[in-house]
Each structure stands twice: as structure tokens, then as C-alpha cells.
């Protein structure tokens, strides 16, 4: 019920007391206001909170790009690496200390372009790393160039005539590479994201989270908030994520269904 006054106050107080979001660092994120990454941040924080993971047992490994800044805003151990190398580094961290919960974080440029070669191998090795691919189809930190997931015809300063390349479908890739857990999520839905993240973290082996998000600064045409909100929709409740064949069908037919696409049946 929306009421001002005491009801509002009570709600704020409840949130303050729940300390729900302690997995944040002290520094205010430097992402542009409105950035979808905030939603992912919120989702991951909720997941950490709900799973009651001790913060010092978490390592967030990130690459370069706006997503690379993630560890600075997270009250966890962080390792901000070089461009594209998130997964190998995360592999090292996880193998070195299997007690740690490792999140690898990178954007679509980091994970599909320069670092695209690592994805199949980490999936193949089935390292128990949780990889969050922030897919906004644009290079944000370098001020707006097309990325491997940009749709054809993307016009940027680096592609004034529009791109001609086909976009990569990260979910499909992960599915093809036989990741143990594949989810497709939406940055605007932190609660749904937290749910899927929880499941992914609990699943042993490589978990891949393909997260649609928006760059409010450099993408005014494609993955805008309003478009994403229109496009994105949850998988039907009857969907069986353990059926890999069905998962392929779903992903091939529908680019925007969200939820747990595939999980290896135990």
C-alpha cells in the first residue's frame, strides 16, 4: 500500500535494519546513472545476502570495461584483471582455494570478443566459477563502439555506416559449450536475477549468466531500457531446464525469454 508518512518511514527503517545490501563496498559506483549494471549489482548482492555467503569467502574477478569496475563496488575480495582474461584468472582463484565462491564478471566485449576464446574452455573444464556476462551490446568505457553482440546495422562512431556482422548469442554459446548451468537474465529484474544466481551458485561446475542490460549513455537505439522491458519476458513456469534439447529450441526460437535455461540434471 502506497502511503506517505509513517508507512514510508517504517519501510525505510526495515530495510536499514535488515542490512540486506552489505555486500557493497564504500565507494559509490562510478557507472553512469541509470546503468543496468546497478541492477545486476543489486541482484548479485541480494543473492549473496540470501545465501548468507561470508563476504570474505567471495572473490569477484573482473575484466576491463564498465563491468570491470564491479569489484570496487563490492564488499568482497576483488580482482580487477586485464581485458578479456576474467575466466582464466577466475579459474586460478577457484582452483587455488575451492572454498571460495568465485564470480567472474565481464561485459560483452570482454567476454565475447577479446576473451571469447576462454569461454568454451572454462565450460569444458567445468570449473566451479559463476560467470556473469553483462551484455549491453556496446563498448561503454571506450565511449561507444559496436560489440560482438551488436545487431547488424549498429551505428556508432566506429561504424558510421552501420555494422554488418551477425551478433553472437551468448546463451546459445554457453549451451553449446555445455556449461553446467545457463541462465538468461535481465538487469531490470534484480529479484529474478538473485533467484537464478542462487541456483547457479549452488550448482557445482561452471555457471553462465547471460544478463541483458542497457547502456544509457551510448546506446539510444537497441538495448534501451524501454526496448528491453518490452522484449524480455520470463520462461513459462512449466519450462524444464534439465532438457538440453528443449533448451536449444527455446534459445534458437526466442532471444528474450529469461530464467534458468539449462541446468545439468544430477
Amino acid at each position: 500500500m502506497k502511503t506517505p508518512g509513517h508507512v514510508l518511514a517504517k519501510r525505510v527503517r526495515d530495510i536499514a535494519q535488515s542490512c540486506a545490501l552489505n555486500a557493497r563496498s564504500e565507494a559509490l559506483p562510478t557507472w553512469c546513472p541509470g546503468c543496468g549494471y546497478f541492477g545486476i549489482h543489486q541482484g548479485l548482492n541480494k543473492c549473496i545476502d540470501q545465501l548468507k555467503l561470508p563476504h570474505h569467502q567471495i572473490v569477484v574477478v573482473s575484466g576491463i570495461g564498465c563491468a570491470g569496475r564491479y569489484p570496487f563496488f563490492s564488499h568482497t575480495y576483488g580482482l580487477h584483471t586485464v581485458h578479456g582474461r576474467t575466466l582464466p584468472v577466475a579459474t586460478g582463484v577457484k582452483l587455488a582455494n575451492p572454498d571460495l565462491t568465485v564470480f567472474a564478471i565481464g561485459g560483452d566485449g570482454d567476454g565475447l570478443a577479446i576473451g571469447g576464446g576462454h569461454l568454451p574452455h572454462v565450460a569444458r573444464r567445468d570449473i566451479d566459477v559463476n560467470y556473469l556476462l553483462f551484455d549491453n551490446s556496446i563498448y561503454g568505457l571506450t565511449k561507444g563502439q559496436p560489440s560482438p553482440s551488436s545487431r547488424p546495422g549498429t551505428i556508432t562512431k566506429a561504424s558510421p555506416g552501420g555494422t554488418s556482422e551477425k551478433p553472437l548469442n551468448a546463451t546459445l554459446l554457453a549451451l553449446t559449450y555445455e556449461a553446467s548451468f545457463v541462465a538468461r537474465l535481465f538487469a531490470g529484474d534484480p529479484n529474478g536475477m538473485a533467484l537464478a544466481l542462487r541456483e547457479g551458485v549452488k550448482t557445482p561446475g561452471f555457471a553462465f549468466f547471460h544478463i541483458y542490460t542497457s547502456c544509457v549513455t551510448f546506446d539510444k537505439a537497441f538495448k534501451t531500457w524501454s526496448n528491453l522491458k518490452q522484449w524480455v519476458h520470463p520462461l513459462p513456469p512449466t519450462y524444464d531446464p534439465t532438457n538440453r534439447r528443449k533448451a536449444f529450441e527455446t534459445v534458437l526460437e526466442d532471444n528474450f525469454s529469461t530464467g534458468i535455461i539449462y541446468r545439468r540434471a544430477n
Partner: protein
Amino acid sequence: MPTVDVTVEVCGMAGDGTIAAGAMINEALSRGGFSVLGFDSYPAEIRGFGRCVTRSRIGSETIVAMGTDTHVLISLNETEAKSRISFLAPRSVVIFENNPPTYVHHDASFVAELPPDKLLYGMPLSDLAAEAAGTPRGRNLTALGGFAAICGVSPDLFISVVESKFKTKGEKILSSNLKSFEAGYTYALREFSDKKGDAIQFPELPHNDRMVMLSGNQAIGMAALDAGLKLYFGYPITPATPIMEFLASTLPKQGGRVVQMEDEISSIGAVLGSFYAGARSMTATSGPGFSLMTELITHGVMAEIPAVIIDAQRGGPATGLPTKTEQSDLHAAVFGGPGDSARIVIAPTNVSECYHYTIKSFQLAEKYQTPVIVLTDFYLDNRVENLVMPLASEAETRNANVSPTGSEGGNYKRYQITESGISPRALPGMEGYIFTATGLEHTEKGSPDYSPEVHTAMSEKRHKKIAGALVDLPKPEVFFVEDRLDVGVIGWGSTFGSVLEAVRAVREKGCRVGALKITSLSPLHASLIQEFMERCNKTLIPELNYEGQLANLIGHLHHGSVVRLNLVTGSPFPPSLIIRKIEDLIDRGDI
């Protein structure tokens, strides 16, 4: 007791058992109490066509280098052996197949080309082996039998080597090999009794079972094991692959894991990741792979994450000469990568140092929280030396992490600026020390900061830290200390053995020469090097590269006296060239 210094070569085609034969010679003579240094060369195409040559230098006194001349050539393939003729010393022994399956035109005949002074020992190797063991595949052992008989090596040495080598492969194979060896030994003893005494004879020395033959790569692998390595990440590349292979078979036994990664970038990435998380890990590569690693190495520098990287140098640039030796990655190791990225680079000069410096590199990496690069080269990696089984002391393997003490509360500064530049490093899982390691310039607490003040202070911190590591790094070692030298020769890496041998030889002629061994290439003990150079009228720096990369590094320390001697033949530095150069310098009288 007569001294002996003999170089034995086995030459054959891939598949002839050449390498195995060479290894057995090394092992046998090592057990026989000799100092052995072996070095093989083989083609990049592992099972394809191509020449294999093993060289073993065997001496009654310590061998520090591979010589130029060959005294005994055991040919398992005459077409290939032709190329070795020019290396043969006067009156050297040539053992060869004298009943090959096909006829050879004289244009192509090995024997036809042998100079007349050579002592020829033709043997029907294939026939002997087939007769003794039912298969000609043991003909390399038959040849070894011949070698033992001709050069007066006790067959028991070879028999014990064969036994230890083949005992795991079953009685049948062992006896087949022993029979092949014995057939050759008996044949030679019988057939060449009339020439007895012509050939070089090995004296009988006290046997030494404590000695083992180790290659540089094996030493590195063993060092890593002894250092408590937990994870190895690598990508196949000549000449570093043997390290991975060695560890793949040994590391799991002590609870570790070898992961063959998808490339060198991921290898170093994973190494940084596991060091970040507190586990000792390592990768080994060669020039092409090393160049891929440079970005992440500098990330280790910036983020102050330890790492141990073996760069086994080979001929370059690019793919270059994958199976040839060269010392041309020095600049890349010391300087390679973006920015002012000071790091520690050490280069062992022999197999023993390979072991000890690799172990040391883990401590250095941990203590100074920076990548440590161990520079070896094809020659050092693959050469075998006999040495007492190295054993690391407890002090050498001790964990050198500088951990934060006490509870800093929420105020832990991962990159705290300290007197030494070393900041206490927390590991994930430690409560109360959460931080983010980053390759961005950062404040003491690790937040990104590009301000001039911070970058200046942090650059200074990192460089000060590396400079401070000098105290823990092996000092340059002076050989033949004298107040004044006509020529001082400075060597590094695998070349230093050649330097030492050359200096030793020239000194025997009464010249005032000395040698300096540099093993710490970054940071440099500049004052010690300078002091040495000042005592020399001329400083000679022989290196296996074109540019004179060490000379570039230290040349400025003493103007005007540095003479470079560069060689890019892909082979180890022959001491003879150095001797000639020293003598030239002295003869020219401009000293």
C-alpha cells in the same frame, strides 16, 4: 690419474632411438664417476623426418659447457651423420652401420666423406640386434655396446642403466635390450681387438650412484614440486613443454593439479588468480608465449600479485627457430609490457641453479608480491648435467607471504606505502581484510586513482620494492679474483659455462683474465657489476643474441670498455670462440 674430456655424439633419424642412446651414455658415464653435460638437438616435427643429435661431454673434471669438437660419433643414420663430420676432432672415433639395408651411391656415402684421420668402427648394428633380440629396434643399444667396448667403458655401467630404464617395461623388453647391448659389446670387443688403444679410452673412476642426470627442465619441475607448487598452468611450447609433462606426472601425486590451458594468456591469468588466492602456481613458456603474457605480467606488477613464469628462450623473433637456443628474450623479460613495470628476472646458468632459483622465485614472488621471471633457454632446459640430487632446505621452501597482522578493522590498506615498498598482502578468505586488487593505478586502499600524486607515489613504491629485492637475489659472482684484469668476461644464462671454460683456458696460458656471472637481471646489482668492470681493461660480453641485450643493460655502467660478442647460430656458445676473442683482445695490445 689421466684427465679426460670427451664429447660423444649420437646421430640418427627421428625414430632411431638416438635420444635414448644419448641419455644412456650420460647416465652410464655419470654413474661411472664422470662429470657429464649432455645436450640434444632434435627437430620441431616430433615424429617426422629429421635429424636427432645428442652430445654428451664427459670429463673427469667438472664440465661447465658444451665443447665444439666431437670426439666420438655414433651414427645411427649415415645420411644424417654426414652433417656432423665437420665437428669431428682429429682422430675421433666414428661408430657406424656397415651393413645398411640399401646400397648407397658414393656421392651420398657418409664414410666416403670422412677425413682420413678418423678412426672408423663399422658394425652391422641392425643384424647384430636382430640376431640377438629378434628385432633390429635395439640397434641403438648395440651401438652403445660397441661404444663401451671401443672406448673402454665398463659394460656394467650401461647394463645397470638399461636395467633401471627398462625394468618397469617388462622382462621381455629389458632382456631384449640387454641382449642387443651385449651383442654390440661382444662384437666390438672381438672385431676391434686389433685396434685396441687407438681410440680414446675412459679411465676407471670410482663409481658414484648419488649422482643423477637432470635436465634444466627437470630441475625446474622438481624445484616447483619441492617448493610446494599447487597448480601448474601451461600451454605446450618448445622448449618448455617438458616442464608441464614432468609436472603432469608428478604434481597430482602431491595433491596438485596441472591444467593445460587454452593459451599462454590464460595460463598466466590462472597463475595470477591462484597466487591471488594464496596458492603457489607456475607457468612455463617460451618467447612467443611469453610475449602473450606480458600484459598480465604487468598486471601482476601493478596489482602486486605474485607469479612465477619460466621463459625458456628459443630462437626468435616470432616463431623463429623453435628448437634452437638463443638468449634474445632478455629485453622482453626485463622490459616487456606496458608501462614502468619493474619485475624480478633471474637467469640460472646451470641445472643446479635451475633448481635453486626456481624455488627461490616462489619466495621472491610472494615476498615482493610481483611476478618473477626465470629466464632459461633451449640449451639450459634440455641439457643434462649430472649432479647430486638437489634438495631444497626448509628455509628455501618456506612460505614468504607478508600477511597483515592484527585487525586493521575496516582500514586495511592493501597497497600501503611502507619503507620497503612491501605492503602486507591479505588472501581471500581472511576476514576483515577485504580489498580489490587492480591493474588500474590505485590508492593505498586499492581504489582507482589517476592523480599525479598517487601515480608518482605508487610508481615509486613499486620500483622501490623491486630495488629492495636485491638483498634477496643472488649476487654477481666473480671467478678468478684479481685486482686488475686485462679482460673480464661477463656471462649470463647458459652461456656462462662457456665463458668460464674459456677464461679458465686462457688463464692457463698465463693471461690475466677473469669472469663475472650475472644471474639477477632485474633488478641489477649495478654497483657490483660496475666495480668488476672498472677492474677490467676490457669487458667482454658474449651472448647468444644479435643485439647484445645484456651489454645493452649494463654497458652504460662503464663507458668505453665493453666488447660484445654475439652469436645467433642457434647453438650453445662454443668456448672456443670466446677464447679466440679474448686472445684477440690481448694480442691487439690495445689493453
